[in-house]
């Protein structure tokens, strides 16, 4: 086994395998069954390849691994620089884990323009992995923008009633916000002559950029705005419910599961990594927005008559926890933020799949259209309950670990943050369980629901892996945290240094 040779090119393989699959898919004849099988094989292959990353990852080691750094364009100085650390590693695996499930869940539900659908899905996967693996700011921006088009097309071509409005809104919101990030990236390049994250970070910490102190706040905001829209942080969240409600199930799964994490990942990597001092200065209002997001998202979720909108607003609330954890600058908070990202990806992904199954059967997401589903669809109801409990944060399931860590980090930072955010846990139990009760318990209120079929084999294969990983993540979080912790510690070094400097003076 020549693992060394594989390790140097594994990131390239994992990133571009789906794209290669998509290109082959273009050539394939329009036989829907073959196309589905092919897409499944490609996405599974990518998942298996990506498992190489955690298996051969040196966990105690901080810093980046599996590094590739080749010059791509000489002027401007752009490198093909990819690597993962404990933070991005799991987000890559999350992406490759969810994509085959998306293929499975779309097996029956997408029956028109099947070829286009799977091509877009695979292109999206490449772009998403690229976002998490790029260390060159240019490459990062490149993949960041590249996620937009397949996602917007997935929403706009395969979505529901108001799909075009939702697709355009999604596209413009993120496009305009990332223009500010591009301006900040270009400014950094103009001053440092490099797009390399590590080079720029070193130059900033050594004070090698004379104009930096004056511009730092604006640069921080430029990056932050692009990420905040993506997360989405209150009050930039208005695109999210529209996009989710209109998106096809697979689109929603990847949108909630991975795309939103691009924003929080960006904050963690770039805002904290490049601008530690500005992060600290801006933390109070960012945390305020995050806590507003947690509570507001939960309250709005509670009154939603539409199941998918409810889950969408629950994402606003959960991602608020992530932002809170990141800007608490504590070991526990950052670990928790990372863990919530992963847990939310798995459980909300599964929730969207389950909601999509109902829509396939009844063509509606209205909660009032259902009721008493537990008797006609027992397996479905049990799976749903499991995922709901994971999302609510029941101990021994994945949601609990992340939220607990974030809250303990928030308490360390400032008790009031912890107290306010902790109410979010109560709210989330309230809206999810209440929704569950209305949909599944009681008598069957609409006779048509009696004839609804239970989970098919494809649907079981799509949903159950999420449930299993929710359980494993809840029981043995150390498997994930052992890689996350050193990376988080490294990310926090500039903050402890600032603290020491302040104390030393």
């Amino acid at each position, binding site marked *: 086994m020549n693992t060394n040779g594989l390790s140097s090119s594994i990131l390239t393989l994992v990133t571009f395998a789906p794209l290669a699959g998509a290109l082959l898919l273009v050539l394939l004849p329009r036989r829907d069954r073959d196309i589905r099988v092919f897409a499944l094989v490609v996405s599974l292959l990518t998942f298996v390849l990506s498992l190489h990353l955690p298996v051969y990852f040196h966990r105690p080691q901080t810093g980046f691994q599996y590094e590739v750094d080749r010059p791509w364009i000489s*002027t401007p100085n752009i490198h093909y620089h990819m690597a993962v650390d404990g933070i991005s590693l799991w987000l890559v695996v999350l992406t490759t884990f969810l994509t085959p499930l998306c293929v499975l869940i779309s097996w029956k539900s997408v029956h028109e323009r099947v070829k286009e659908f799977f091509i877009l899905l695979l292109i999206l996967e490449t772009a998403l992995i690229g976002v998490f693996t790029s260390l060159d700011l240019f490459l990062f921006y490149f993949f960041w*923008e*590249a996620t937009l088009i397949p996602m917007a097309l997935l929403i706009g*071509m395969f979505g529901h009633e108001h799909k*075009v409005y939702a697709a*355009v809104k999604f596209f413009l919101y993120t496009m305009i916000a990332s223009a500010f990030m591009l*301006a900040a990236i270009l400014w950094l*390049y*103009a001053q440092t002559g490099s797009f390399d994250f590590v080079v720029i970070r070193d130059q900033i910490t050594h004070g090698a950029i004379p104009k930096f102190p004056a511009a730092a706040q604006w640069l921080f905001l430029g990056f932050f705005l692009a990420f905040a829209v993506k997360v989405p942080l209150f009050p930039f969240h208005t695109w999210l419910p529209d996009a989710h409600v209109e998106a096809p199930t697979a689109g929603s799964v990847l949108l909630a599961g991975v795309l939103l994490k691009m924003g929080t990942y960006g904050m963690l990597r770039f805002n904290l990594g490049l601008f530690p001092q500005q992060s600290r200065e801006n933390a109070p209002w960012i945390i305020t927005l995050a806590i507003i997001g947690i509570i507001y998202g939960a309250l709005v979720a509670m009154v939603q008559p539409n199941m998918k909108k409810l889950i969408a607003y629950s994402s606003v609330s959960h991602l608020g926890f992530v932002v809170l954890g990141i800007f608490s600058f504590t070991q526990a908070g950052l670990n928790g933020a990372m863990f919530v990202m992963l847990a939310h990806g798995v459980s909300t992904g599964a929730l969207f799949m389950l909601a999509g199954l109902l829509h396939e059967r009844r063509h509606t997401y209205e909660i009032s259209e259902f009721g008493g589903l537990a008797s006609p669809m027992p397996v479905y109801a049990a799976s749903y309950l499991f995922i709901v409990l994971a999302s609510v944060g029941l101990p021994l399931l994945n949601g609990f670990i992340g939220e607990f860590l974030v809250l303990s980090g928030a308490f360390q930072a400032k008790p009031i943050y912890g107290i306010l955010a902790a109410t979010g846990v109560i709210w989330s139990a309230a809206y999810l369980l209440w929704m569950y009760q209305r949909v599944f318990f009681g008598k069957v209120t609409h006779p048509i629901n009696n004839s609804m079929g239970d989970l098919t084999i494809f649907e079981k294969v799509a949903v159950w892996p999420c449930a299993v990983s929710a359980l494993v993540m809840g029981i043995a979080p150390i498997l994930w945290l052992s890689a996350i912790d050193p990376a988080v510690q490294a990310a926090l070094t500039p903050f402890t240094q600032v603290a020491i400097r302040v104390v030393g003076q």
Partner: protein
Amino acid sequence: MMSTTCAFGIQTIPQAEEYVRILPELVLSAFGIAIMLLDPVLDEERSQKILGQIALAGTLAGLACTWYMSEFPGLAFSDMVRVDAFSVFFHVLIIAIAAVVILISYEYMAVQQIRAGEYYGLILLGTVGMALMSSAVELVLIFIALEISSISSYILVGFRRRDASSSESSLKYFLLGSFATAFFLYGVALMFGATGSTNIDLISQKLQTSPMQLLANVAFALMFVGIGFKVAIAPFHIWTPDVYEGAPAPIVGFMSTAPKAAAFAVLLRIVFTLNVAGSFWLIWVSAVFSMTLGNIGALLQNNIKRLLAYSSIAHAGYLLVAFAAAPDLGTSAVLFYTAAYAAMNLGAFAVVSHFANVGERHVTLEDYEGLGRTSPLLAATLTIFLLSLIGIPTTGGFFAKFYVFSGVLRANLIGLTLIGLLNSAVGAYYYLRIIVVMYMRQPRKEVPAAPIPFGLAVALTLSIGATIYLGVLPNRALQYTQHSAQALLPPPSSGSSPPLRASETF
């Protein structure tokens, strides 16, 4: 260097090498005249095809001659023409654009039932003017070249004779265009008054010491008006939507790329070689207005030709932004942008002209509804061009914008950069509308999907290839543009002090 005999224009018989330095122009003229002469002789039914092929052969011969010409850099004809990497770049670009336009026109002319051989002749003769604009270093020759290219475009615009809007646009273009060239000529005259010369190199030397800076500034402003009209930058852009709407679609593709490239070449020479002190704010204001007005105008359009007309105004604005950067970065960014823009815009107009059908009936956005289902290949092609126009990564349009804005940011013009980036985000909306309409609406019954003929397929393949190539491997093209830019700019050792550039203070 400059002998007195030369300045008075009395010189010995031109050397053979000097003819080589205008060889592409000579060959293109020969083919153009041959087409004009053959047209009345040939049978009307068959002439179209043959003349079109002769024209294509002419452009290919022109490209070959450009390659040969590039071996003989230097001045020619009393220092009126200069062959260097800069002019070679524009020769290749302009003649290649002409070749692609001719390929697009085969089908268009057959469908529109325009039987006129002089159409191809005029394209070639216009190309002569544009190519000459890029190599001329004498203001009077630039003016003549500008006229050669303009006159042929006035006629080409009016080629859909049965359509009133085409005649209208031809007349409008002619009246406003001759008005604008008069401005340019007036500017040349004033520049001669300020410096006593019409040779750009001599003017540049004289301006260093000239006491008549004000006159030179006014002269530059007047020339800027003339060139500004040709490249359709605000506030000289009013003619664009009407003319683009009426003109034949392949000609719009031609007009929005080749003459613009030539005019930008002239503007590069004037701005960066002359270094007139007052040029900065003129360019700044005009760039901001072009981007903003172009994008806002395009938001409201329902006719795809008008939409692309406004988009071309916005793109001229982005290009103009590069003129505010430092000369070396700015010039190479302009060169890259003109090449990338030519590829994507020509491609877009190729699809539009294929789809327009008899009498250009199908040019509104509604006609594109459901194109993604009825002809997926055509829709995917147009999508790539539109994405490039938006400036999405992996397309040439992205790197074009990227080089422009990183160049401007180097010069620390943060305001201009932000305005530009926000504009390009707004611009995404109207290109996206076309994509949305193509993929997310039901197809309309009455719009037939014609098969793609061979000539168009070649043209589309070339455009897509260039767009993607510039977007994925821009390195070689960029190095070439930098090499060309160096040819334009005076070497730093010439003793000229670095130009004073105003900074962006409000």
